[in-house]
């Protein structure tokens, strides 16, 4: 579980732990109990070595993600590089590093965190782009690994009560909350429940799917 120290990652780690999984939580800084591995995912070159020392992994949840929440004219090169690495390149590297052993066992489940940001215009251009990219690589890996018994799916949450939402641009938050049926932000636990279902229970035929958790927000 990447990004396991807080928000959706933390709730998902708890949900899977309650369901009997041994959870290895990764985060970039040690905080609380959620973090077993301190690692900054912008360090792409170290991902293979990291995965090698973690042993057998049955379920990968690519949860770690960042949002810069600045307009395009103020985006720095560093900010762009960082969001592309954390949201897109690192999850792909993790799948590439983990999938050979899943292939050898002919089983494994991978869940990627997309977002409704993938479907529409976004005030943080690179956030939208990276989340659309997550859906693309979810389908690509589902097609490549699916014939060998590996399920690759994604969830696309709407506004969820996390630090990332609090940090979002006000006009973005307003656009999201205008649409939700129940006028509330979703709970991290609701995304966690969905991730747990995809990780443990969803039938094998669900592959390459994106489960929208949006309460009416930006329905596709």
């Amino acid at each position, binding site marked *: 579980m990447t990004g396991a120290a807080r928000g959706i990652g933390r709730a998902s780690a708890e949900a899977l732990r309650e369901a009997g999984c041994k959870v290895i939580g990764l985060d970039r800084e040690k905080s609380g109990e959620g973090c077993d591995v301190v690692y900054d995912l912008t360090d792409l070159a170290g991902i293979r070595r990291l995965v090698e020392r973690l042993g057998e992994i049955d379920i990968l949840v690519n949860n770690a993600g960042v949002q810069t929440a600045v307009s395009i004219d103020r985006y720095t090169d560093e900010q762009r590089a960082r969001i592309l690495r954390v949201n897109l390149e690192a999850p792909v590297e993790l799948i590439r590093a983990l999938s050979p052993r899943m292939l050898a066992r002919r089983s494994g489940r991978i869940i990627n965190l997309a977002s409704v940001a993938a479907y529409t215009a976004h005030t943080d251009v690179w956030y939208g782009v990276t989340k659309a990219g997550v859906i693309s690589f979810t389908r690509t890996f589902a097609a490549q690994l699916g014939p060998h018994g590996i399920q690759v799916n994604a969830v696309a949450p709407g506004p969820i009560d996390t630090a990332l939402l609090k940090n979002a641009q006000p006009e973005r938050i307003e656009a999201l909350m205008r649409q939700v049926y*129940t006028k509330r932000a*979703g709970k991290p636990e609701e995304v966690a429940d969905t991730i747990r279902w995809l990780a443990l229970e969803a039938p*094998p*035929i669900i*592959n390459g799917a994106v489960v929208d958790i949006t*309460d009416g927000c930006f329905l596709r």
Partner: protein
Amino acid sequence: MKTVFVTGAGRGIGLAAARLFLGDGFRVLALDRDFSACDLPKTAERITYDLQHLDGIAALVARLGEIDVLVNNAGTLYCHPHDAFPTEDALEIITVNLRAPVALIEAVAPQMKKRKAGRIVNVGSVAAFTGHPDLWYGATKAGLLNITKSYAGFLGKDGILVNAVAPGPTLTAMYEQLPQSRKDAVMRSVYSGRPCSPDEVAQTIFWLGTAAPAYISGATLDVNNGSYPR
């Protein structure tokens, strides 16, 4: 005890779904026009009804008591050529696949609103995302996904969740009706080299009808294994 109402429960996906709810302790109301292929235990209440009779739906639902979960599964497909589609059959598809689900939702919505709870699961199809050999099947399934979003909006503030599943080609009697070209296309595209099993679609319906978090509403869950993805 919670009650689920499953249409088209006499066979295929509906039958598999009814069985899952039954296994979980639900009171199961199973509707179909034909139960001859149905092996549901006696504990499920069978309702023989042809959903083309839209006018009788409100009265039917009124005598069924409390319904916590509605599964709009019944559907019709003919696969006539587009340029020789008998009007009567087109109307049957539109009635069963679109108008009956709407009538059923309208019939159960007031009691769900009163209880501020309820779940509705509509059975769409990947046919909604692509063209389909049966013009009206594809059109009505696309319509059903749209209806899912509309009612999720209409009923969402009252605590009612409305979602859909969009199965790929599933091994049911309907699958046998598909032209060979469609079956070949399916097998070329699915990752696992097999069509969906009714039980896999049923498991997804069951999750949406029971445990799926409340923030999932207005959504369509793809159960397709790579065949005809949107």
